[in-house]
């Protein structure tokens, strides 16, 4: 049956209503990317002032416009955020103190315009460091401790230039230092720090969002969500074979992405900023029913982490991309299913029950969109072990020409069996067990792992 005045059937209307009201369909984030390269002045202080003023001017209406779209269209928009040009590029030639000034300017601007996170305290060091990169990296622990909303990311490798193991070595130490500085909050600073291989320039999701040097002056990027919607679609079809199931997921991803495209276009028009991309990621939250792990289990796995988990995730990830790519002209970002631990109730449970280990998580990152994400590890983990985890994950990204990342939290004073609690979207996580044998000598070699050959790919 269809309405005479309106070419949509009642079933479709009820489906949409249900997706939003009971299946947690939301737009996870509207992220405004802002190029701040023109804010460079001769001193750190003057540059910080320019950065602050530009962000406030550009993003002044972001939260208001987002809230209005939410009200008018009845689609929840959870986060409004900002990403800026990697600060190391703007601050090259400045010292650590100057970098801190730039970081605090970002924090203050985020607070002023009312966004919850601002990304871009970042450096791209996949082939080597500039002096600015080194100064920025040194400033990370303090900025993540004292700055409330600043997020940081470092790109330490890519398929074309290999892996900068000097940076990997250094980032192990920086993560430890950040955890210790924010030890009173379970190492919260590390939840705002991502180490990437093959970082993308238009990712709207924190903590890894930055406005890449190839991006226009300003853009609006949308991060969609909706694990709950896909979960319900999968649950409805226990009889289908996997080809059929992939089709169902594609159809669902299409609908979710269309919603993102609508919100993105409206936001872009109202803010007078070009529409960038829709990131097709399924981003879970700690809320029940908003879990990627639950989707994998609904596909037929007894518990996430068991044999078959990687295959199930590969199917899910690819089907989401196929459906989404049909729905939007501009797809980008990280696009796929996120498998963070602390932010996904099903993943937390799988770690607790001993089904999901760090090794299986690493294997699953070969087919998911990001990498080892929001994983709490023992507080006494040595820096070189963290570096080795980063190196492994970067190698997966480098060889497979995909983005991978590590966001890991060595929770001070905690050990296997303990929990970290961050609250809100960042969630809570049990400390996961790591391998006890030392990779120290390997990590201490430093240098650069050469880029892989692109022919003879297997």
């Amino acid at each position: 049956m269809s309405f005479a005045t309106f070419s949509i059937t009642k079933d479709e209307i009820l489906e949409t209503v249900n997706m939003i009201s009971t299946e947690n369909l939301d737009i996870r984030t509207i992220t405004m990317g802002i190029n701040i390269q023109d804010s460079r002045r001769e001193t750190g202080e003057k540059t910080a002032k320019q950065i602050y003023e530009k962000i406030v001017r550009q993003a002044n209406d972001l939260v208001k416009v987002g809230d209005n779209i939410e009200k008018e269209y009845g689609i929840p928009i959870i986060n409004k955020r900002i990403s800026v040009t990697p600060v190391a590029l703007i601050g090259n030639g400045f010292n650590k103190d100057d970098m801190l000034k730039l970081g605090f300017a970002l924090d203050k601007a985020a607070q002023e315009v009312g966004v919850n996170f601002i990304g871009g305290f970042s450096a791209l060091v996949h082939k080597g460091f500039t002096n600015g990169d080194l100064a920025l990296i040194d400033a990370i622990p303090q900025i993540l401790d004292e700055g409330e909303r600043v997020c940081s990311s470092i790109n330490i490798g890519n398929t074309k230039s290999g892996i900068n193991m000097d940076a990997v070595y250094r980032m192990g130490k920086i993560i430890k230092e950040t955890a210790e500085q924010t030890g009173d909050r379970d190492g919260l600073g590390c939840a705002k720090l991502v180490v990437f291989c093959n970082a993308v320039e238009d990712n709207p999701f924190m903590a890894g969002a930055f406005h890449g040097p190839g991006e226009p002056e300003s853009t609006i990027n949308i991060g969609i969500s909706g694990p709950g919607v896909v979960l319900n679609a999968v649950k409805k079809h226990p009889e289908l074979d996997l080809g059929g199931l992939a089709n169902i997921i594609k159809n669902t991803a299409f609908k979710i992405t269309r919603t993102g495209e609508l919100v993105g276009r409206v936001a872009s028009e109202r803010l007078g900023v070009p529409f960038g991309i829709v990131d097709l990621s399924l981003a879970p939250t700690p809320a029940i029913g908003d879990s990627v792990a639950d989707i994998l289990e609904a596909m037929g796995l007894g518990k996430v982490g068991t044999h078959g988990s990687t295959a199930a995730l590969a199917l899910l990830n690819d089907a989401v991309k196929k459906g989404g790519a049909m729905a939007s002209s501009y797809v980008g970002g990280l696009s796929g299913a996120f498998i963070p631990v602390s932010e996904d109730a099903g993943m937390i449970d799988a770690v607790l029950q001993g089904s999901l280990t760090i090794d299986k998580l690493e294997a699953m990152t070969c087919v998911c969109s990001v990498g080892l994400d929001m994983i709490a590890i023992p507080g006494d983990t040595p820096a070189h072990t963290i570096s080795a985890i980063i190196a492994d994950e970067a190698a997966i990204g480098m060889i497979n020409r995909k983005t991978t990342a590590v966001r890991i939290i060595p929770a001070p004073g905690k050990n296997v069996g303990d929990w970290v609690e961050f609250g809100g979207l960042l969630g809570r996580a049990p400390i996961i067990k790591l391998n006890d044998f030392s990779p120290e000598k390997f990590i201490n070699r430093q240098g650069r792992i050469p880029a892989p050959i692109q022919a003879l790919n297997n």
Partner: protein
Amino acid sequence: MQEGNKLIISVLGHDKVGIIAKISTVLADNQINILDISQTILQGFFTMVMVVDVSNSKIDVAELRNILREKGKEMNLEITVQHEDVFKFMHRI
């Protein structure tokens, strides 16, 4: 983006006397015209979908949503209000 004037109102809950009367009164009071209405009992649930035109209304979508949500609470119904573009975008290319 073309500013559409149509909203879709959906009502779900247990069937009882006066649901349509009460909701259409709210709409009439606010100069909102009902263009189409469809109503069925789906798996024991009362299900109604309305297409309405708000071009002459003085209240905005958010306000209408609040009024109807309150009305829904009184009658133990779940009432949602959404812009037509959401449906058009989601289901049609």
